[in-house]
């Protein structure tokens, strides 16, 4: 963090850091810290390794070994993954496709509606803007549990039960949290930006579309990543609205697999790993946005 210590008295630089690395080092504190960190990482990674090993185990070998094996060494039945993906009773390939359709629908809906509303709140002056913004904040506090049943009855009545629509359409009407997040970001652009464009004769739509929206990509990325993860991992929504095996999502597929798998632990673990992979991939690509997004949310508290 601080690199320049030249201007300070000679004794200070040692003591000023939050954690005094110099004294720690003398005491072997660094070694202790590394040992603890490595132990924690082992606790995270070994179960994942165990799962990977179990997923590669053939049908006639128990996935439970004594003592537990944490990494694949003996068996490499990659076939288990294709079997899990194309099992006619529980086609995880199809489940993934369904989940992807729902997730992409939600991403499009969220980006569309939230950026529109955020633009109005961040950069337009209109009567009632303060009241509406307060309403937006209050809606963040509305617990979705009470909405679950009336929304179900609504969608059931208009014939959307058993379709993806109830899982996608609401995202096109915005999400208070993401509107807030994007609005905060859009407020940081200088005001002259819009005014210069206005002078040049650009309409509000044009300003939004060609100036504000491109500048907001970092905030939109956070919304996209969170929406994807939220939808990919969503169990309750699909459980309520979907009733046909051909429409199921990975979360439901996995939940059903647990109760019906019997002793097919290897295929269950293969399906489980397949479910985790998109999240892991996204995590590594969008780590900065994800952690930055979460952290900024935390600091606003």
């Amino acid at each position, binding site marked *: 963090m601080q690199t320049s210590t030249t201007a300070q008295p000679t004794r200070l630089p040692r003591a000023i*850091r939050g954690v005094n690395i110099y004294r720690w080092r003398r005491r072997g504190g660094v070694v202790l810290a*590394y040992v603890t960190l490595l132990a924690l990482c082992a606790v995270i990674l070994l179960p994942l390794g165990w799962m990977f090993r179990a997923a590669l185990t053939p049908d006639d070998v128990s996935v439970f070994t004594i003592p537990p094996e944490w990494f694949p060494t003996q068996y490499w039945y990659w076939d288990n993954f294709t079997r899990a993906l194309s099992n006619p009773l529980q086609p995880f390939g199809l489940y993934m496709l369904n989940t992807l359709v729902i997730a992409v629908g939600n991403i499009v809906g969220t980006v569309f509606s939230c950026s529109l509303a955020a633009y109005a709140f961040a950069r337009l002056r209109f009567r009632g803007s303060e009241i509406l913004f307060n309403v937006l904040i209050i809606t963040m506090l509305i617990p979705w549990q009470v909405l679950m049943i009336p929304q179900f009855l609504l969608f059931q009545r208009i014939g959307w039960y058993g379709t993806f629509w109830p899982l996608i359409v609401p995202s096109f009407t915005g999400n208070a949290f993401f509107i807030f997040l994007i609005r905060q970001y859009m407020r940081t652009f200088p005001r002259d930006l819009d005014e210069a464009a206005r002078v040049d004769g650009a309409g509000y739509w044009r300003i939004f579309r060609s100036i504000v929206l491109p500048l907001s990509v970092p905030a939109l990325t956070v919304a996209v990543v969170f929406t994807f993860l939220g939808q990919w991992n969503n169990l309750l929504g699909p459980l309520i609205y979907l009733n046909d095996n051909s429409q199921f999502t990975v979360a439901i597929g996995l939940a059903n697999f647990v109760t019906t798998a019997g002793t097919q632990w290897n295929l269950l673990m293969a399906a489980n790993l397949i479910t985790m992979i998109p999240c892991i991939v996204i995590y590594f690509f969008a780590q900065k946005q994800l952690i930055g997004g979460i952290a900024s949310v935390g600091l606003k508290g």
Partner: protein
Amino acid sequence: MARQEERAAYLFLLPWLFGLFAFLLGPIIASVLLSMTNWNLITTPRWVGLSNYHQMLFDDYEFWQAIRVTLKYIVLSVPLYLVAGLAVSLLLNLKLRGMNVFRTILYLPSVLSAVAVAVLWLTLLNPDLGAVNQILRSVGIANPPGWLNDPGWAVPSVVLMGLWGVGGGAIIYLAGLQNIGPHLYEAAAIDGAGAWKRFLHVTIPMLTPTLFFNLITGLIGAFQVFDVAYILGGPHGGTSDALLFYLLYLWNVGFSEGRFGYASALAWLLVILAAIVIVITFRTADRWVYYETDPTKG
């Protein structure tokens, strides 16, 4: 020009305004009314006043079981996750080589699907064959707990499993830690405060807003456990209803049994219960949460 701007603003807000009425305000009003009816979609709704609420409070064993399970989970998990998250974040805040790798790994579980994580731990916690009990046996614990099969251990198992994702909370603390001005540590060091005293009198007070945020979100989340309970205990709450979390019970009443009126009443009771706990927590805030001079926070 101003009128034009106003018209544009409302056009931009149109999708959100539509959702506000169609998917939020409408359903909320419907939910209040529904909670005072008996309705299963087939028969016509029958107005019953407050008797749904009366029934759950005085004549519903499973409701009280769901309350017990949920409160037990909250009492065990919320303080544990707060302390563990803080401890991990302090570790991650050290300026050591390779720290980014450690941060990446420790945060990883919190992006994984709760369902998939629960499936993994279901196998690891298998009482006879699971890796956890094998390790326990190998270090001399002859009779390790039955974990999810043992009603007494079921909720603690869920709590311990959640520790696996504690890095998610730690990242928020970490941002809080890095926001503490170095001048504060500097001043404390000049006054002769050692590392422990600086932690106690600088780090902790400056971190209380973050602690408070994590406490509130932790409480809200703890009232809403569903996915993990559904996987670990099954749709109906597990052995002797030991994992009948409130939301799982609500889901069962509503979507398995089709008692939509009663389920709506259950939803409102959950909201009231959660609101009471959260309001009490907010009331305590001015006694222990320290906000620096910035009045916009909190």
